[in-house]
């Protein structure tokens, strides 16, 4: 097995569905990072069979909303002195601002520059959100 050094201080994003690691990596802007980061794919997992894993050797502010939106089942481990100091369980955010785009071609957001369109969760199962302007449903 590939040996990845334990990190002293940072963040481990665990239980990422296999194949989704790169999407999250990019979404968090880690491909532009100047500190140590590792994306590990297809790690054997008891729970998932296979999972992806991201290790970040740095203190960064994670956007938990966007992570929850992508996959509410992933786990965030905050590491200090090579130990897990805190485990954060994600959940599907009830409201999302500035991440989703309304897919309704007749929506006013398609013609006006609006920075922080708010979307409200309307269906947990399908992860569908409702646009605050046109009420149309959209998902990531």
């Amino acid at each position, binding site marked *: 097995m590939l040996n990845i050094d334990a990190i002293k201080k940072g963040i481990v994003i665990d239980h990422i569905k296999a194949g989704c690691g790169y999407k999250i990596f990019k979404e968090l802007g880690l491909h532009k990072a100047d500190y140590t980061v590792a994306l590990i794919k297809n790690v054997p997992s008891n729970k998932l069979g296979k999972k992806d894993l991201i290790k970040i050797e740095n203190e960064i502010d994670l956007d938990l909303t966007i992570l929850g939106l992508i996959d509410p089942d992933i786990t965030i481990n905050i590491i200090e002195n090579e130990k897990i100091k805190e485990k954060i369980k994600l959940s599907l955010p009830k409201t999302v601002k500035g991440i989703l785009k309304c897919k*309704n071609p*007749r*929506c*006013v*957001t*398609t*013609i*006006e*520059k*609006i920075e922080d369109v708010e979307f409200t969760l309307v269906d947990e199962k399908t992860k569908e959100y409702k*646009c*605050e*302007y*046109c*009420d*149309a449903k959209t998902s990531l």
Partner: protein
Amino acid sequence: MLKGRHLIEPNDFTIKELDEIFTLAEDIIKKPDAYSDICRGKLLATLFYEPSTRTKFSFEAAMLRLGGNVIGFSEAKSTSVAKGESIADTIRTIGCYADIAVMRHPKEGAPKLASKYSNIPVINAGDGGHQHPTQTLTDLLTIKLIKKSISNHTIGLCGDLKFGRTVHSLVKALSRYQNIKFVFISPSELKIPQYIKDELKGHEYYETSSLEDVIDKLDILYMTRVQRERFISEEEYLRLKDSYILTLEKLKNAKKDMIIMHPLPRVNEIAMEVDSDERAVYFKQARFGMFVRMALIIKLLGVEIYA
């Protein structure tokens, strides 16, 4: 208090607030002269980004009958909007001149966006296929005035129930009242969407494709247009369009006090011969629409009622 508020969708107002508007509209109908000067010195701006002569006239007539004045445009082409001005800037500028604004826009959510930046009340006069709340207010007032109450009726909605914006809003608004039974009458291609049915909050409903089968059960029949462009094939359209034309023959089995409503304009879904039937109230409905807009303007402006 409705002073300074916006009307973007019918449910922006509570049942009590709607009732206040309807009561005022009723009073205006009784003694229009008492209100003919109440908005003197007030200015209504009609911001119509797409033409809708009927709705625009209704609002303009309402304001003029209150003694106020009107400015506005009827399409975006001739305005600064054509130069790329944002809705936010347009409404902020208009707010410097006018006391209240009415907006019609082809994009859904445009009036809501305007209301976020506006220091004067904004009334949505139709945003794409989304909302048209003053039509819903008109419909509710018509039912209230002619049937004496908005609650306790069986209402048949007939025609294009899939894309019909007025139908969706009316159903949603009526589901806030007591004991309403809905009968949805449409071709199977144009059935009422599931999410509207999900919002019926326990009210009984029945779906059918035959108007004849249910017409004797109805207290209210709400007719809408079946548009040619909604059909994939011309044959389908031709086959179905006639089945929803209301004639005196079809009205034989209807209740004597059933009322026939229609948001207008009509194309051919109600035969002309029906117009003289007492039950046809669609032209009255258009008139009530002006009165409900008068009441709405008074309330949102918060002008003193000395009538």
